[in-house]
């Protein structure tokens, strides 16, 4: 048990605090003190954020490896399986811990005002607390089963929060869809975990496990299978193709939930998992290319669908899917260039994306709150003058997402594009595929800028149009909702400062994580290439800038006057395809859901048949009884006759046999 005042101890306290907040909020709900339920949540998140930021700042400078272990006793131990409560704090997890708690604090403050007066107020904050706790558990877990526990915990809380308005059928269906689709991914995750556990000498602590596998690598096929199974879990949780269909529907939940879970934290768990098991992936370049390919496919697909959506939150949801695709594209580069570059690019993009996407979602929440829960962009417009602060923060977020130079999104996206370009130029056998995916990424970056600003212009420019649901009270949101927007906007602007060429801080910070070294070492073993380090490229920066300005410019030209949208005849089929989400949901319904329902109906028929069979068996005694019952006719002489006849038979047998 570590001492509380050490950095490790403070980190563990920071992990535990949201759970305490959850329990206290639940208690508020039980004691009918609903109005106070936001206080435990905000306070616990804030203190956890303070502690983790403090630890981060304390340990930010230095050269030594940052790797702190804690073992808090055994959870359970069965046969070969020994699962302790072991935690590991290193650069990546510390950064993620700080980011998650920081953003959660401000989203909680926003929610206190957004969800004001709602009946399930206490339930909301309680589940949010549980979610933050599960996420912190996930990022600090050293034991792979503890990580899976955190994984499942965030999945559960996502279900509970998406289905917050459980009485609404669409919300309940969306929650179920989210849970079930991620469950499909979790199947792969569990299989991967057990494969890795077996390959890793039956260690359950991740560091030892990975070290064992790197030292005694198994066959290529086995490693590929294990990596793909783990990636399957990431595909489910981080909404990659083909399991992304739950994320747009999950917008049925309250907007702050979308901001927290589906922008900043839960969906990034897949990226984190791949970063944590990077050495394994580094040993299998084949797995890496598959990761990149799927990431690229997802990014382009989602960007295409986002082009024609008129629901603002849907645009942002598909944007999230697309940006997650970017992160996986970056991670996959670790098969051709050094994993430290890949991990740095992906995690940094994760960090910046958390800020600007949460900002955008909260902004849309602010708009929705003012417009009386209407989020259809066709129904409102020209809100620049009506909600100035929201407008400004939304603009900052959009610029960051589009990759406007010097904003945070620019730096992280640029890092990924550069990684892809380098991977295309490396000696890897898959180099040409990386080049192709680089082209896809460039196209996606352009489309990202376009649809983001389409949404911005349609919402805030053009003539002022307020829907009647707003009851004429359209005004700027209260201060409690504006402060998180402002804070996150500052973050979206400034986070770029941590990276070169301004400082080299984040690269150095990540270098201090042992897993990165391990990954580099594995990369060297697998590909016989010497791992390099991240360098800033001016050409790449130029290309990124061109793409951003191109997208923003095109959107400005088309949508400067705001809505309604005019689509030229030639583009109508494409627009319809994009609007209908490429009919993927319908395809799944026909190929997967319908056969499953058919099988279920068949199974129920069979069950009914078996039931009838059982009833038939139960019919037999009744039949026999009905045949025998008339013997009991109540006439004593009849009974006596029966006895005599039986006795006669018996005596006959006795007599005949005794005289044989």
């Amino acid at each position, binding site marked *: 048990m570590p001492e509380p005042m050490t950095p490790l101890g403070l980190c563990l306290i920071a992990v535990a605090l949201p759970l305490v907040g959850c329990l206290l909020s639940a208690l508020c709900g039980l004691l009918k003190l609903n109005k106070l339920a936001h206080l435990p949540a905000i306070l616990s998140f804030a203190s956890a954020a303070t502690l983790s930021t403090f630890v981060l700042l304390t340990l930010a400078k230095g050269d030594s490896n940052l790797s702190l272990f804690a073992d808090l006793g055994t959870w359970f131990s069965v046969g070969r399986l020994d699962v302790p409560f072991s935690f590991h704090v290193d650069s990546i997890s510390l950064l993620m811990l700080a980011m998650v708690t920081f953003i959660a604090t401000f989203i909680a403050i926003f929610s206190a005002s957004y969800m004001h007066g709602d009946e399930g107020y206490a339930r909301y904050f309680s589940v949010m607390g549980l979610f933050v706790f599960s996420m912190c558990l996930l990022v600090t877990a050293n034991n792979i089963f503890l990580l899976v526990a955190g994984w499942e915990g965030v999945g559960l809380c996502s279900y509970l929060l998406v289905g917050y308005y459980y009485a609404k059928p669409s919300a309940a269906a969306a929650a179920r869809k989210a849970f079930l689709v991620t469950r499909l991914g979790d199947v792969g995750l569990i299989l991967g975990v057990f494969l890795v556990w077996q390959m890793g000498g039956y260690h359950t602590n991740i560091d030892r496990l990975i070290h064992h596998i790197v030292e005694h690598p198994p066959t290529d096929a086995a490693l590929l299978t294990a990596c793909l199974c783990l990636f399957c879990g990431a595909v489910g949780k981080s909404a990659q193709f083909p399991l992304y269909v739950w994320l747009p529907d999950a917008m049925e939940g309250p907007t702050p939930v979308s901001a927290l879970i589906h922008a900043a934290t839960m969906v990034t768990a897949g990226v984190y998992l791949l970063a944590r098991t990077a050495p394994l992936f580094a040993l299998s370049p084949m797995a890496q290319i598959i990761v990149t390919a799927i990431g690229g496919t997802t990014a382009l697909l989602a960007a295409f669908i986002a082009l024609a959506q008129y629901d603002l939150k849907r645009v942002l949801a598909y944007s999230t899917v697309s940006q997650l695709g970017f992160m996986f594209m970056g991670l996959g580069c670790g098969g051709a260039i050094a994993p430290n570059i890949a991990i740095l690019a992906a995690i940094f993009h994760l960090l910046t994306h958390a800020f600007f996407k949460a900002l955008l979602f909260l902004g849309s929440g602010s708009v929705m709150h003012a417009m009386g829960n209407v989020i259809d962009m066709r129904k409102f417009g020209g809100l620049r003058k009506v909600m100035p602060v929201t407008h400004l923060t939304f603009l900052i977020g959009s610029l960051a997402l589009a990759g406007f130079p010097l904003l945070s999104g620019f730096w992280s996206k640029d890092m990924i594009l550069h990684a892809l370009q380098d991977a295309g130029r490396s000696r890897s056998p898959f180099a040409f595929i990386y080049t192709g995916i680089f082209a896809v990424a460039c196209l996606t970056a352009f489309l990202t800028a376009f649809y983001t600003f389409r949404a911005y212009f349609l919402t805030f420019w053009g003539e002022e149009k307020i829907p009647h649901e707003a009851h004429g009270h359209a005004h700027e949101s209260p201060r409690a909702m504006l402060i998180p927007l402002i804070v996150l906007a500052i973050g979206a602007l400034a986070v770029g400062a941590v990276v070169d060429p301004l400082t080299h801080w984040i690269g150095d910070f990540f270098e201090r994580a042992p897993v990165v070294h391990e990954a580099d070492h594995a990369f060297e073993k697998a590909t016989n290439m010497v791992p390099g380090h991240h360098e800033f490229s001016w050409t790449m920066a130029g290309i990124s800038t061109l793409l951003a300005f191109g997208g923003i410019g095109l959107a400005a030209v088309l949508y400067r006057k705001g809505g309604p949208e005019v689509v030229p005849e030639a583009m109508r089929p494409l627009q319809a395809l994009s609007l209908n989400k490429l009919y993927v949901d319908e395809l799944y319904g026909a190929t997967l859901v319908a056969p499953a329902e058919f099988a279920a109906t068949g199974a129920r028929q069979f069950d009914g048949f078996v039931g009838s069979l059982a009833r038939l068996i139960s019919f037999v005694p009744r039949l026999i009884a009905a045949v025998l019952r008339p013997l009991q*006719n109540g006439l004593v*002489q009849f009974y006596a006759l029966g006895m005599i006849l039986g006795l006669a038979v018996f005596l006959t047998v006795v007599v005949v046999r005794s005289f044989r």
Partner: protein
Amino acid sequence: MISLPHFLAIGAILFGLGLIGFLSRRNFITMFLCAELMLQGVVLNLLAFGRYHGSLHGQAFGLFIITVAACEAGLAMALFLVLYKRGKSLDSGDWQAVREAGVSATLETEALPAYVPDESPTLPVAGRIPEQPEVTVQEPFRA
């Protein structure tokens, strides 16, 4: 010299006849008389065997059988009286209610013949002048 099997045969026949009567007749009294008939057959059997062995044990046991038969008769008569009070007849077919639920009562279908009262004269109640039958005077036969 008396041969044993003859007496045993007679005992068996008496027993069998009693059995038939007990199983077939519906009047309580007749049923009981047939049961006593069976007991007689048994006593005959016992005595025959006792004589065969030249001992008195058979007779002693026969005495006990008579005792028990007497007790049985007394109790049976008491029970028949109670049943008669309840059912107003001495028919064993009246008491079928112990049958299984769902089984219908066994009822007779064939009708009984009509009651033909006896030809023998019945005595009138004392104090009433009996009805005088019509007297028709027959003319004497003249051949």
